[in-house]
């Protein structure tokens, strides 16, 4: 067992972990913003909103992320007006930003469907009660719909976020030396693909387990009402006499 080799490989791959996390984090953050926009557009009730979001979800869920990435990175740079645009080119020029954009657009499609399902799953009774209380639409949304929907969406959303860690590996196809790219380079130089890839696999596994554990904890924090009440172990103090 060539421990030195495994350790040095894992260390080299770990050095690329910050880059992987960067892609992952910003992909999720921007994806969340876009997904919120899409969900709002869909919920607004306009015909255009509905058709646009349905088309968007269809395109971005129906095609592989790799195709979307290549299209954004290589395809768009073919156009003169993109290359000379002062807004688009600084973003599309950098492979890092291109990857983040591709991942954000892709995950937003899945996330908007998750949010849509969560919004529909909010118990109608709660909303009716809120209406009966005379809450305005905004207050209703802020105090009733949003908290419940967030809690309902959390399991599916956390699954999607964990899936995003796998998507970061595709950045290696457009020159970014994140964990997968680093592992591949080591594999090319040493001609030991199985060992290198297994080491990288272990690191990805640990990463995913940590993120999954983190989200399980967040779910736990957000659902105190689903847990049994704590034991009434303390002495109930007698009410002091009031005279």
């Amino acid at each position, binding site marked *: 067992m060539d421990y030195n080799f495994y350790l040095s490989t894992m260390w080299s791959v770990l050095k690329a972990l910050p880059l992987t996390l960067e892609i992952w984090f910003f992909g999720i953050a921007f994806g969340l913003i876009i997904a919120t926009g899409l969900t709002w557009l869909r919920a607004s009730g306009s015909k255009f909103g509905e058709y646009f979001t349905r088309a968007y979800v269809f395109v971005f869920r129906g095609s592989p992320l790799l195709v979307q990435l290549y299209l954004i990175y290589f395809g768009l740079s073919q156009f003169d007006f993109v*290359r000379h645009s002062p807004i688009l080119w600084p973003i599309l*020029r950098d492979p890092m930003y291109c990857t983040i954009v591709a991942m954000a657009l892709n995950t937003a499609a899945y996330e908007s469907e998750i949010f849509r399902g969560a919004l529909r799953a909010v118990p109608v009774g709660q909303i009716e009660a809120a209406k009966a209380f005379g809450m305005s639409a905004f207050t209703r949304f802020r105090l009733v719909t949003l908290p419940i929907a967030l809690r309902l969406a959390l399991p599916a959303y956390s699954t999607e976020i964990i899936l995003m860690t796998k998507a970061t590996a595709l950045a290696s196809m457009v020159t970014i030396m994140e964990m997968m790219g680093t592992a*591949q380079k080591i594999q090319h130089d040493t001609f030991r693909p199985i060992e290198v890839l297994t080491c990288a696999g272990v690191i990805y596994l640990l990463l995913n387990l940590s993120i999954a554990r983190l989200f399980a904890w967040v779910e736990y924090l957000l659902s105190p009402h689903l847990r049994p009440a704590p034991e009434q172990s303390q002495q109930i103090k007698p009410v002091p006499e009031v005279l």
Partner: protein
Amino acid sequence: MTSSRWIALAAVALTCSTPALAKDWKTVTVAMEGSYAPWNQTDASGKIVGFEVDILNDVCARAKLECKIQAQDWDGVIPGLTAGKFDIVMDGMSITEERMKTIDFSIPYASSPVAFLADKNGPLAQMSNSGKMIDLSKDDAESKAALDTLRKELTGKNLGLQVSTTEATFADKYLKDVANVHEYKTTDEHDLDLMAGRLDVAFADTTYFLGTLAKPDAKDLEFVGPQFKGGPILGPGIGAAFRKTDKDLQDIYNKALKAALDDGSVSKYSMQWFKIDITK
């Protein structure tokens, strides 16, 4: 599983596998990228054609072998060869000591120095030593000076090259700490990015760039800076790659290749595809 089950499993796998077990060489599978013009490229009908295809057909005719060409991405050629997916690799591969640790090479059939390509109107159009050929095997003051100038001029610039090539090793050794090196899966990709302006300079074989410059959308590109050849990193030339265990196949191939080199056939193909004789 009983041993008979293992044999059955192996037999099933054998029937699906390519003939990597042939010891009396009648058929060989040769891997080429199919996207490394003009050494090997894919035409619109899906057939692979090019300089190396012509050499291969010539050599196989002389050696009375049936040669099948298989497309394989560059970064999988050496692992694929050692794993037995094919028997020979012809893909503009430079003979280097590092590679010779794992595989064997035929006698060289071409030499191809490495060069830099950049935009005529870009920041690197005025690189020094333009057009000079630096032979790194001499390891003298001239090559050292050329490398120093190169490092200075490429500081902070975006350089593109293909993964797992001699250029990548060169860049790792001399340029990694000064330039932003981007490694691409294929040479076409760094060409595309050079034309798009993401890269300031691309770094690949001279002969490959000759093919790139022949395309109409490369009219703004030109060779810049010195060309390098020789030395331990770049190697003495381009050869076909074989597994170390296939010495008999290497002998057959080398005999036929030598005959083709001696009677000028390879030079003929070279003139046809490169317009220059790269066997020298």
